[in-house]
């Protein structure tokens, strides 16, 4: 009897396996078509740096040099002069050496106005390293191109349909903000 039982178990196992395999045929493949379709990276993914402008196009950076001081790799070089009409400083030079940058985002944490941000543009490979010595125009351009960005201080911001920058909904915020907020809402209601 035990031989027949073994045969039956083998047949049953093969049948179960083949049924499982057949189910997989109808499931959609999770393949990413990277060169054709750019993947939607999560906001916490640190791929490159950018310098945000205000909504009206004026400079958001107040040139306080906090990021230059915070940078452990010392890749940020800033030169400034005092604003002749009013208070504060204006940028002469704002360079980030993206080759030697280690993408720790310490500058992002240090920034008091959330001007320098991390973005999700990872297509920075190049034959010429000089193209990765980013100047202020390049950093502004990167920020304009970025669809959404992340700052630990202000959370994730998104660009709306009409071009304004708004705080993203809790589902998009990092650090489980949605899960933290959910019990509070349930208690209120």
């Amino acid at each position, binding site marked *: 009897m035990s031989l027949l039982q073994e045969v039956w178990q083998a047949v049953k196992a*093969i049948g179960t*396996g*083949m049924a499982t*395999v*057949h189910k*997989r*045929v109808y*499931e*959609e*493949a*999770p*393949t990413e*078509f990277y*060169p*054709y*379709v*750019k993947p939607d990276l999560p906001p916490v993914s640190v791929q490159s740096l950018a310098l945000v402008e205000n909504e009206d196009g004026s400079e958001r950076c107040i040139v306080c040099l906090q990021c230059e001081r915070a940078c452990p790799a010392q890749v940020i070089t800033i030169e400034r002069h005092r604003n002749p009409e009013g208070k504060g400083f204006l940028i002469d030079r704002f360079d980030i050496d993206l080759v030697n940058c280690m993408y720790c985002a310490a500058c992002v944490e240090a920034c008091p106005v959330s001007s320098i941000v991390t973005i999700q543009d990872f*297509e920075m490979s190049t034959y010429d390293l000089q193209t990765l010595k980013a100047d202020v125009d390049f950093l502004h351009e990167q920020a*304009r*191109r970025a*669809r*959404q960005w992340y700052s630990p201080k202000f959370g994730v911001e*998104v*660009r*709306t*349909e009409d*071009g304004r920058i708004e705080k993203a909904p809790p589902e998009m915020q990092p650090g489980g903000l949605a899960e933290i907020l959910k019990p509070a809402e349930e208690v209120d209601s």
Partner: protein
Amino acid sequence: MSQIPIPEDRHFRPRLLGYDPQKSRPWLERTVYSAYVFVFWLIVIGTYAGVPALFGALGWDSGWGFVLMRTLQVVLLFLLSAVIALLLILLLRKYLGKVQERYGPMHYGPAGGIQTVFDALKLLAKEDFVPAAADVLTFRLAPAITFVASFAMFAVIPFASGWVLADTNVGLIYLIAVSTLSAYGVLLGGVSSGNKWALIGALRAGAQMVSYEIPLALVFLTVAVWSGTLSLGGIVDAQLGLWNFLPLALPFVLYVIASLAELKHIPFDFPEAESELIAGYNVEYSGMSFAFFFLAEFVELFLLPALIVVFFFGGWHGPLFGLEPGSLAAGALESLYFTAKTAVWVWIFLWIRATLPRYRDDQLMEFAWKAMIPLALFGLVLAAYLRLIWR
């Protein structure tokens, strides 16, 4: 959320070749496969109805004209085997891709449909390298033997009633002889390569194929005993009332298992076990020599399921919708039935290949000698007994 477009000049972007990956278009794949099957069908009709009709109209159907006609038919069958190999390799890659939750080839042609054509062209253009340690004559001969042994099985396969090159009354014995011959090609190819992986693969192939020929031949005998004929056309004709897979259930199961081993197919792919032996007996082959091994494998992947259909599933039988038997339309319809039944069995073989892991070598031999052969003998005796009391 709107995305500012990325400037085109900043980054290299490959061109989109024939397929928009964001759109899932299964109808396109089905169209490609249907086109291949249609070409297959056209070649079958041309081989078995077109060429004889042409030569009959010209009055060349005797003497040297007959030889010329048969030669032309064989050339067309070679074309058919190439189409079979192209289609089956594509189907295998696509099906394994779907099972493993990825896409198969999809960049060349609609839905990757002509990827295998490009592969074949690549193999044609590659250097046919002979290693220094190889025995040149045997090394060159082995792929030819393997392919010819598989290709020669076409001679007795009936695609429809009367659509067969040689409807001999010893068709089964011819099949046993020819299918055993392909083991020689594999064995010689592995031994003459001068490579240890190839040698181990060839030894395994020899042991495995010789062992599994025995239950295969016993199943052939069982079918012959049950049908009362050795001719394949006669076997199909004998199944008019009842297809053989019901009365011959045990030999049928044994045949499926033994043909998996004969095909060197998973779960019995020891001769070319990629993870152990790299590629086994064909590890030193490149270019067209390798292509012939490959062609032989995929022609067999068509022919052994075709034999399942001939032996157990009524061959070309199916509803004819009032068409006159023997006419061209009836023959075309019958060959379509035959192709469809074979396609189902090819799919089941691919399904088995996608599911099962590899067996162990000693278990394989143990299974052949301790289980398959006694069961095949038992099936033979049972079929003979049933035949005596039933018919």
